[in-house]
C-alpha cells in the first residue's frame, strides 16, 4: 500500500519535473523574444538619438558615480581612471573606502594626490561605520574619496549617497569598468521621461582577461579559462537578454549593483540601502516599487541594453561557489522581506508576475534541478517511467536549454556583437553547451546551499575575492 503511494508520488514528481523544465526554458525564450523587440527599437534609434547632443547639452543632469571599495588595491586605480574618463558633461566620482585593511587608500593617494577636506556630514541617511576623513584630489577634478570604518557595501553606498552632490546617483562596483559612453546611455530614460523614470540599469559583462588601457576596455575577447567563458554566455542570457525582456514588459525587479542609476531624492525617501541584507541592490529596487505603489505614483524602472559595466567574474570554483551561495541567499532574503507583494494585484506585474517567477523559477529552481534529476534517474532505474520519458527529459532539461543559450548568442551577434573574433564565436558556442552540461548543475548545488543557509538564518559569508587587477597595457598614463 505504502509502496504504491510512493511509486505514484515518484512518478507524478517526475512528470512535474519535466513540465517544470519545459516551463523554465520557455520562459527564457519568452524573455528573449521581448528583448528582441527592445533591441530592434534601440538599434534603429541609435543613429538618430545622437549621444553628441546629450554630451553637448548643458541641461544634462549631473551624475555622482559611487564606488564602494573594500580591499581593492589591485584594480582600484584603473577603475577610478575609467570613471573619471567617462564622457559626461557633469560628473563627480565618489569612492568610499569601507575600512580597507590593504593599500586601497594608499594607491589612490599615490596616483591622485589626495588632500583632506573638512566636509560637513549631511547625515541624511543613518550610518553604521563612522566617516573618518573626506579627501579630494589635487590632480583629478571631481574625485572625492571618503574613508570610513567598515560597515559593509550597503553602508558604504549610503555614505556615498549622503555626500554626493548630484541629483542622479550611479552605483557601481569597485571592480567595474564602465564604457566611456555608458553614462550617456544609461541616463537616456531619465531624459526621455523625466517625470516618471525613477531608476535605470545597464548591462554587466565579463571583463576577465580583456585588456584595459587608459580606463577603457580595448580588446574584447573571450576569457582564457572555461569558467569565466561559461559565465559570459550565462550573463548574456540572464542579464543582457533576461533583464531587457523584463524591462520591456515593465517588470524589472533587479538592477545590478554593478551598474544602476537612481534619483537621489528617492534614495533619501527610502532611507538608503538596507545594511542588514545581502542582496542590497535587489532589495533597494523592491523598496522603490513599494514606495511608488504606496504613493500611487506613475513610475518606470528601465533597463538599457547598450551601456556596459565590465566586471571581473570568479575564475575558480571556490569563489564562484561563494558568490552563488550569496546570490541565492540574497534573493531569499529579499523575497521574504517583501513577501507582501507576492501575487498581490496592488503591485501590478511585479507582484503578479515578477515576484512569483523569481520564487518558483529562480530561488526554488535548484531544488528541482537537483532532486528532480535524481528523482527521474531513480524513476528510470526503478522502471517507473520508460526510456522515452528519459530521452524527452534529457531533451527538455539539456537540449532545450542549450537551444536557449545558443539563441541568446545569436541575438547578441545580431544586435551588439561585441566579440569580433571568429575564435570567440566558436568558444562561445562550446561554452553554451557546457553551461547546461555541468555548470548549471554545479551552481544548483551552491544555490541550494545558499537557500538552506537563508532558511537556517546563519551568518552570511562574504569571503575574499582575490582580485587580479586588470590587464593594463602600457605604462601608467597621467590620471
Amino acid at each position, binding site marked *: 500500500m505504502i509502496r504504491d503511494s510512493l511509486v505514484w508520488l515518484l512518478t507524478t514528481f517526475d512528470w512535474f519535473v519535466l513540465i517544470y523544465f519545459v516551463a523554465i526554458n520557455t520562459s527564457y525564450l519568452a524573455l528573449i523574444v521581448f528583448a528582441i523587440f527592445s533591441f530592434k527599437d534601440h538599434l534603429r534609434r541609435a543613429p*538618430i538619438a545622437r549621444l553628441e547632443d546629450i554630451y553637448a547639452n548643458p*541641461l544634462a543632469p549631473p551624475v555622482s558615480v559611487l564606488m564602494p571599495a573594500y580591499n581593492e588595491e589591485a584594480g582600484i586605480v584603473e577603475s577610478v581612471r575609467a570613471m573619471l574618463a567617462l564622457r559626461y558633461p557633469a560628473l563627480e566620482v565618489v569612492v568610499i573606502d569601507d575600512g580597507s585593511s590593504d593599500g586601497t587608500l594608499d594607491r589612490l593617494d599615490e596616483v591622485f594626490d589626495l588632500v583632506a577636506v573638512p566636509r560637513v556630514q549631511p547625515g541624511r541617511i543613518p550610518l553604521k561605520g563612522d566617516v573618518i576623513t573626506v579627501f579630494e584630489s589635487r590632480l583629478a577634478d571631481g574625485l572625492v574619496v571618503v574613508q570610513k570604518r567598515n560597515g559593509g557595501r550597503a553602508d558604504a553606498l549610503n555614505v556615498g549617497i549622503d555626500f554626493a552632490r548630484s541629483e542622479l546617483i550611479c552605483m557601481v562596483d569597485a571592480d567595474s569598468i564602465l564604457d566611456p559612453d555608458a553614462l550617456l546611455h544609461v541616463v537616456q530614460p531619465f531624459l526621455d521621461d523625466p517625470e516618471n523614470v525613477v531608476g535605470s540599469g545597464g548591462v554587466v559583462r565579463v571583463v576577465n582577461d580583456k585588456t584595459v588601457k587608459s580606463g577603457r576596455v580595448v580588446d574584447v575577447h573571450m576569457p582564457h579559462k572555461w569558467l569565466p567563458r561559461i559565465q559570459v554566455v550565462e550573463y548574456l542570457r540572464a542579464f543582457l537578454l533576461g533583464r531587457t525582456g523584463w524591462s520591456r514588459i515593465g517588470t524589472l525587479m533587479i538592477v545590478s549593483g554593478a551598474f544602476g542609476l537612481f534619483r537621489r531624492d528617492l534614495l533619501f525617501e527610502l532611507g538608503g540601502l538596507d545594511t542588514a541584507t545581502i542582496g542590497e541592490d535587489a532589495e533597494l529596487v523592491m523598496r522603490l516599487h513599494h514606495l511608488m505603489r504606496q504613493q500611487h505614483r506613475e513610475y518606470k524602472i528601465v533597463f538599457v541594453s547598450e551601456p556596459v559595466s565590465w566586471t571581473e567574474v570568479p575564475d575558480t570554483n571556490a569563489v564562484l561557489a561563494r558568490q552563488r551561495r550569496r546570490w541565492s541567499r540574497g534573493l531569499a532574503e529579499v523575497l521574504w522581506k517583501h513577501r507582501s507583494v507576492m501575487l498581490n494585484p496592488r503591485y501590478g506585474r511585479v507582484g503578479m508576475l515578477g515576484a512569483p517567477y523569481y520564487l518558483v523559477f529562480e530561488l526554488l529552481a535548484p531544488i528541482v534541478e537537483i532532486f528532480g534529476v535524481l528523482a527521474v534517474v531513480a524513476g528510470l532505474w526503478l522502471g517507473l517511467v520508460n526510456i522515452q520519458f528519459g530521452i524527452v527529459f534529457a*531533451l527538455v532539461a539539456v537540449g532545450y536549454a*542549450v537551444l536557449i543559450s545558443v539563441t541568446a*548568442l545569436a541575438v547578441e551577434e545580431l544586435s551588439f*556583437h561585441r566579440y569580433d573574433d571568429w575564435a570567440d564565436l566558436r568558444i562561445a558556442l562550446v561554452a553554451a553547451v557546457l553551461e547546461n552540461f555541468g555548470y548549471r548543475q554545479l551552481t544548483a548545488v551552491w544555490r541550494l546551499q545558499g537557500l538552506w543557509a537563508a532558511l537556517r538564518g546563519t551568518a552570511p559569508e562574504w569571503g575574499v575575492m582575490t582580485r587580479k587587477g586588470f590587464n593594463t597595457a602600457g605604462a601608467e598614463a597621467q590620471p
Partner: protein
Amino acid sequence: MSFAAHSVIALYAVAIVVMLLVILMAVARSVRLRRRTRTERIAAPLRPMLIRLMAADEIDEDALETLVRLPDSEWHAIEPRVFALLDKVRGRAAEAIDGLLRSRGAVARSLDETTSRGAVKRANAIVRLASLRRREYAGIFERMLQDADKDVRRAAAVGLGKVGRPESVAPLLGCVTGRRTVSPLVIGDALARIGPGAAETLAVMLKSGTLLQRKLAAEVLGRVGATSAETALAGAARTDPAEKVRATAVEALGKVGTWDAVDTLLDVAVADPAVPVRCAAIMALAEHSGTGVVATLERALGDNDYDIAHVAAYALTQLGLAGRDVLERAAARPELSAAGHATEALAAADLDEQLGRRATRRVLV
C-alpha cells in the same frame, strides 16, 4: 507514430534549430564585416577629395567633378558622412559640401523621404535636411513634430534647433505634454539654440503653460540670457504655484537678472516655503554683492537645514572680502552649526585657488 519516434524527431529538431542559429550567426557576422570593409574601402580614397573640397578657397573643380561623377552605389556608401560634415563646418567649406549634395540630388531625395512610410527613413531624412541648416525647412520640421513616431519627432525637434525661428517656439513647447511628446531636454536645447528671439513667447508660456512647459520656459530664458524676460521670471519666482517652476525661475533670474532682480532673490531666499527654492535663490545671490546680500546669506549660514547652510557658505566664498569675513567669524565659533559649513567652504575655496581651478563642481544641488 510511436512515442520513441516522436522523441527522436524532437531531438533532431532541436539539433537542426541550433545548427540554423549557428549558421545565422556566421552569416550575420560575415555580412557585417564585409559591409564594413567595403564602406571603408570606398570611403578611403574619397575622403581626401572631400577634405580638398572643404579646404579650398575657391571651388575645387577637380574634386567636385570626381565626387559628382561617382557611381551611385559608391556615393550611397558615403552620403551619410558627407551630410555629417555639415555639422562640423560652416562658411565656404559648408557651401562647397552643400553644392555637392545638391548636384547629387541628395537634397531632393531627402525631401522626398520625409513622406516615406517607414519611420526610420523619415527620421533619417530629417536628420540630413537639418544638417543643411536652411530656414526654408523649418516649416517641414514644425509639421513633423506631430509625427506618430517618437524618433521622427525627436529628429524634427533637433532640426528646429538648427534652423528654428521664433515662430517655432510655440510648436516646440506644444510637444512637452500631450500624446505626442519629445524629451524636454531635446526641446530645451532646441529652444535655446533659437536664441533671444524666443524670449517673448517663452515669457508668455511662463504664465500660462502646464508645469513642464513653465519649467522649461524658465530654464531656457535663463540660458538665452533674455533680460527682457526679467519681469516675467521675477513674477514666476514669487508666485508660481509649483515649487520646481519657482526654483527654475530663480535660477534663471540669477543668470540674466540685473540689479533689480536682487530684491526678488533676497525675498525668495528668506520667505519661500520650499527648501530647494530658497537654495536656488541663495545660489543665484552668489553672483551679486551688496550688504543686503551678505547679511541674508549670513543668516542662511546658520540655518538648520544642511542644504541651505551649505549653499550659503559656498555663495559667501564668491562674495569677496565681506563674504570671507562672515565665514571666518562663523568658523571661529565651533559650537554653532554654521562653523562646520564655513570651515568646509573656506577650505574648498583655498584648495581651488591653489589649484587654479574654478569651483564649478562644488555645488551640484
